[in-house]
């Protein structure tokens, strides 16, 4: 029931907000809604029974003729991602208050709709339901980016939409295909689907169809070409949703469908995916080094990070997968923090070109400290949240294939290069006329920065808090 409630709350608020006119009230309602979701989620964390396979399970008949049920439930991994969404949404909404988006009602309605759809993706235990929420999450972000985005948004967002929709349709075919293989009466229920024991040739089709959809969403090299442009052109709240939460849908899809459905296919083709993911990881990092604009730099660095996560998942080692789960959470927090910083800089300087910055540390010491913490988390310094996941993932990759692990390890060095370079150029260096009057973090911005900093250190110091939830789920998944 709780899962369904979580989906319902933002959806209901999204409808209310959509029909409202008063701007301040809309903002308050949107923020209030995200806080309610967060509270429900925290309440859920206390109720969460780690020994169960699925918590908060519910099953209502929806379409009898087709065997589609409203079947919701959260395993450890799903719950962690729901927590991530609930944690980030208030921050994203709060950070969006600094910009004025015309058509406020529509804007926040779309953000809340996206939140609802994300809960649906992580909580669905029915193949078709999963797909519906998967597509539903795409529509709001398309409109957010195309209406409130930057230069060239029409072309870029259309490309993004067609790219993701057409690849997702292949996933739909795979879901229907698996459905037709279930014993009569057919059903989409995950419990049935995952126990199907497909033959090798069936797994082949299902694997590639799913992979296509998920690889575009994550994105895994060479399906990433929509990503940097879309991240850059999107308004900051959109970039945060796109980078912090959307890749997790793809990674979650791998854990939910590909691993249980196609063990034979992973054995056979998993290596190729790992190789491509690692190529993407190096490629993203190398390009990030050459970027001259903060948002693009973050986009490529994010590409690099999700590459590592994807590679780790496809090794299907227990350590690597649980590392990847931790990193999903950490990356979500860190990348949102990075975009938040980019937004602060943009609002004060009206530019995010790196060579126009410099010497911010003198006029804005709080921002400099916050930025440093986030940067160190991004380069996976011990004691920060980035370290735990990256360590586990690289360990997992090492036992999978030493050469691949060695190459993937380079990314840490590259990551340090572009992050330190960015930090040095933007925060230290020569002060110019504009950075000299750079205003430090306001109270509202502090209210966003502090939870992020706390989360970075808490996960870094007590990673068992995260793994505690996912442990059983990952174990169950790998040793099926």
């Amino acid at each position: 029931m709780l899962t369904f409630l979580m989906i319902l709350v933002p959806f209901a608020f999204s409808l209310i907000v959509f029909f409202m006119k008063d701007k301040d009230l809309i903002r308050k309602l949107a923020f209030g809604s995200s806080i309610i979701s967060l509270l429900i989620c925290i309440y859920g964390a206390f109720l969460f029974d780690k020994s169960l396979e699925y918590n908060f399970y519910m099953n209502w008949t929806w379409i009898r003729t087709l065997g589609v049920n409203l079947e919701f439930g959260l395993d450890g991994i799903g719950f962690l991602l729901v927590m991530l969404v609930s944690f980030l949404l208030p921050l994203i909404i709060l950070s969006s208050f600094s910009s004025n988006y015309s058509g406020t009602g529509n804007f926040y309605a779309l953000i809340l709709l996206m939140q609802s759809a994300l809960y649906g993706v992580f909580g669905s235990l029915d193949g078709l339901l999963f797909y519906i929420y998967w597509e539903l999450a795409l529509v709001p972000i398309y409109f957010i980016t195309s209406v409130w985005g930057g230069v060239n948004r029409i072309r870029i967002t259309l490309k993004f939409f067609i790219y993701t929709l057409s690849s997702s349709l292949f996933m739909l075919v795979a879901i229907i295909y698996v459905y037709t293989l279930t014993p009569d009466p057919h059903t989409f229920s995950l419990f049935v689907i995952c126990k199907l024991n497909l033959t090798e040739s069936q797994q082949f089709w299902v694997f590639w169809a799913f992979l296509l959809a998920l690889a575009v969403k994550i994105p895994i090299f060479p399906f990433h070409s929509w990503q940097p442009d879309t991240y850059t052109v999107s308004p900051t709240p959109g970039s945060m949703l796109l980078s912090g939460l959307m890749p997790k849908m793809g990674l979650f899809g791998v854990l939910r469908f590909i691993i249980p459905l196609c063990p034979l296919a992973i054995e056979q083709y998993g290596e190729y995916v790992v190789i491509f993911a690692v190529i993407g990881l190096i490629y993203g990092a190398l390009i990030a080094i050459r970027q001259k604009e903060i948002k693009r730099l973050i986009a490529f660095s994010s590409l690099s990070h999700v590459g590592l996560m994807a590679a780790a998942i496809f090794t299907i080692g227990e350590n690597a997968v649980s590392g990847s789960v931790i990193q999903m959470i950490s990356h979500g927090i860190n990348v949102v923090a990075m975009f938040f910083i980019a937004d602060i800089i943009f609002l004060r300087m009206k530019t995010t070109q790196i060579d126009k910055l410099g010497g911010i540390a003198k006029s804005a010491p709080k921002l400099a400290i916050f930025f440093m913490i986030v940067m160190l988390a991004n380069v996976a310094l011990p004691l920060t949240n980035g370290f735990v996941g990256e360590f586990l993932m690289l360990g997992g990759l090492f036992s999978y294939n030493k050469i691949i692990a060695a190459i993937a390890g380079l990314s840490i060095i590259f990551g340090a290069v572009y992050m330190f370079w960015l930090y040095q150029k933007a925060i230290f260096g020569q002060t110019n006329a504009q950075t000299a009057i750079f205003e430090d973090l306001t109270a509202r911005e502090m209210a966003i920065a502090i939870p992020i900093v706390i989360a970075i250190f808490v996960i870094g110091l007590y990673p068992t808090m995260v793994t505690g939830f996912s442990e059983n789920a990952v174990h169950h998944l790998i040793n099926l």
Partner: protein
Amino acid sequence: MNTIITLSVLGMITMIIGVSNKKDILLPVVFMGLLVALVFSSLEWGHSNHYFNNMLVVDNFSTVFSTLMIFGTFLIFLIARHYFRSFEKPMEDVYSVLLFSLVGAITITMMGNLTMFFVGLEIMSVSLYILAGSKKTSPSSNEAAMKYFLMGAFSTGILLFGITLIYGTTGTFDLFEIGKWTIENKDSVPLVFKAGIILILVAMAFKVGAVPFHFWVPDVYHGSPTLVTAYMATVAKIAGLAAFYRLFSMCFSNLQDFWGPIVWVLSFGSILLGNLAALHQSHVKRMLAYSSIAHTGYILMGFINFNNFTTGALFYYSAAYLLSTIGAFVVLMLVREDIKTGTVDAFNGLMKKNKFLSIAMIIFLLSLTGIPPLAGFMAKFNIFTTALENRFIWLTITAILGSAISVAYYFKIIIAMLLKVGSETKVILSARTKVLLVILVLMIIAIGVFPDLFLQLI
């Protein structure tokens, strides 16, 4: 049966009212009549009846399709006054011809006999030729009527050839008898009979506008008055497809190995060409014409296997398509009023001018694209499920690519509404059009969220 009688009488009354110059009661009478027909039609659900020695067979299939078509016509009439406002000459002849066409459409979904099939199809088609040319002063309308008439006459001829050949081999016009004959002579079907099937197939492909027999569609849809186009693209097309399905499932289902591949090609071609050609249209009407070709292709995917689920899926698709397409045409009519171009530019900046209208249009277009949870998604989903159950993987993949392509042109309109800057003129909606749009939007969402209601009707 009562439905046909009601509608025929209604058509005649409409004419008489027109002659007696009482224009104020014209539309109310039409609405009343259509509502009565709707009630009669839906009351027949669950009963099977035969009339005139199996000339007409009323079963659930015919009942749901005729109810859908009457409902569609009702929706189209809701916008009629608004549309014909600018016309100076009396419109009662158009109204009555529209109603007669509906009678033909209903007749072919109820047919139990090839002669009835022919008669019904001609009632529908001849009315449509007249309707296509009903904007007498407009050259493009005349052109459309002429083109449609010539093409239609050809296809009618081909259809008659086919019927003759079938009759020649089986000695009967009765659909049940022909079906029985194919079972008895399963192994020794003469070539003449097969030639008959092909000719009927070609004629039907003409009527529903499937590739490669689609050449008339864009010109006729573009030239006809928009209201008539809306009717042609929805009610008439669905009637043709329903009759097509009924004929082939009743008579020729045993010979599917023979004609199945042909339908496969029709479907494949329609999906691919319809979507690709729609990409390059700047006129919204032409774009919707090509998109309707593509949708015909999707519906034809359902012809690969005849069972209850397929029939349900087919009906569901028809309903979803009818509602979304009528919606799109209605918005087009409203928008076009001020800007006479009818290109995508007519939609520029609509979001600022009229939020309600643009949200409605976005929902119609998203439904046509097939975005969950709207009706169009479930429709496509059902059709894909049937296709995949019968392992038509490549056809499904084509359909998917088609859907992906369709995003590009449907979104052209959405982008124009949201992001482009348009003229300052306000678009004002009458109460009736608002009701119409609200009905359409709510139904599209409701059908999409509760598909069970519609899938189990047949």
